[in-house]
């Protein structure tokens, strides 16, 4: 079921779904609906209670319309709403509003659906909305963020661009440099055939290598290397003093399992 928050607007619903008005979003009513919704379309974000959403509520793919909003409104939405959007979500906005909202947020262009909530635009988003995929990105981004916060890097290098899908959720103080070496190198998805030696070459002396890897071969899924194999392979390719400083598994939702982890390695030659 898609939830469409029309709020104070009289606009016709942009797609099939349960239409909610300004008085239909008391948190006690809204949150249980969000827990099972396939997608959330917010046509009047200024009056939507984003601040009531708990972290896991953001697993639902969200489309936010910024049509008709000024710079002040967009700035006010930043903390509670826009800061939380990730790939898997979408924004409808005029070009100027998109530029304003996306500045410093590392949103990919694919998140911008253009300047109209015409039925086709919203329906295309809803057709591709995938709650599990969004939850997966969000869960990985949360762990990656936590590991990076421990290192508190001012600059980092995104090896292979693979961390870009998590960037909107990563600390905004990080300056992502275009070329290595960097104090912190982030590999957003360590492929089974990746060469960790190339990653280590990008790490400046005394720096850290942060690797997200899928470490469980789920039934029917692609072949993965186990966590200890990843650790051994990366350490074997690193300099003599390299060590594993931390490993944090990613809790999957839905379900109790853990199939991915973020590894933080230190060069150990400061």
């Amino acid at each position: 079921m898609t939830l469409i928050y029309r709020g104070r607007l009289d606009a016709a619903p942009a797609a099939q779904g349960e239409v909610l008005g300004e008085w239909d979003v008391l948190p006690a009513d809204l949150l249980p609906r969000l827990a099972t919704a396939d997608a959330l379309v917010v046509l009047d974000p200024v009056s939507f209670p984003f601040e009531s959403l708990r972290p896991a509520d953001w697993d639902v793919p969200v489309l936010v319309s910024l049509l008709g909003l000024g710079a002040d409104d967009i700035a006010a939405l930043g903390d509670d709403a826009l800061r939380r959007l990730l790939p898997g979500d979408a924004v409808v906005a005029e070009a100027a509003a998109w530029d304003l909202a996306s500045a410093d947020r590392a949103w990919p262009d694919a998140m911008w659906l253009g300047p109209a909530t015409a039925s086709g635009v919203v329906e295309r988003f809803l057709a591709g909305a995938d709650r599990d995929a969004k939850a997966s990105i969000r869960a990985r981004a949360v762990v990656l963020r936590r590991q990076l916060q421990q290192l508190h890097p001012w600059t980092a290098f995104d090896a292979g661009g693979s961390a870009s899908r998590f960037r909107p959720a990563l600390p905004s103080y990080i300056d992502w440099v275009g070329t290595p070496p960097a104090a912190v190198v982030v590999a957003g998805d360590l492929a089974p055939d990746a060469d960790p030696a190339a990653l280590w070459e990008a790490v400046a002396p005394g720096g850290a290598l942060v690797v997200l890897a899928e470490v469980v071969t789920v039934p029917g899924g692609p072949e993965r290397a186990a966590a200890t194999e990843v650790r051994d392979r990366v350490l074997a390719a690193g300099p003599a003093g390299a060590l594993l400083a931390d490993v944090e598994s990613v809790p999957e939702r839905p379900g109790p399992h853990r199939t991915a982890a973020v590894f933080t390695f230190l060069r150990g030659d400061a």
Partner: protein
Amino acid sequence: MPDRDEELRALRMENDLLSLEIEALRERMRRGGHDAEHADGVMVDGDRLRRLEEARRDLKWLLQRLGSGPLGTIMRRRTGYRRLAERHLSEE
């Protein structure tokens, strides 16, 4: 329906991950001297360790359930299950 061997393999890999994570946390605590703060100032999250221990207990419970009753007779014939049981049910 997923093959039981594939499920066991996934369970084994998940256990490998949790064990490594717990090992890393214990190592950080050991180096820090106590469970609140690492020597280099990085906080160790005691709640995280607790959650991991809970997850590991759940996985052990699953192994015990798989190994009991009529199904257990079949499971114990599987090398993968025996390896997991030896590793995680006989260590304490």
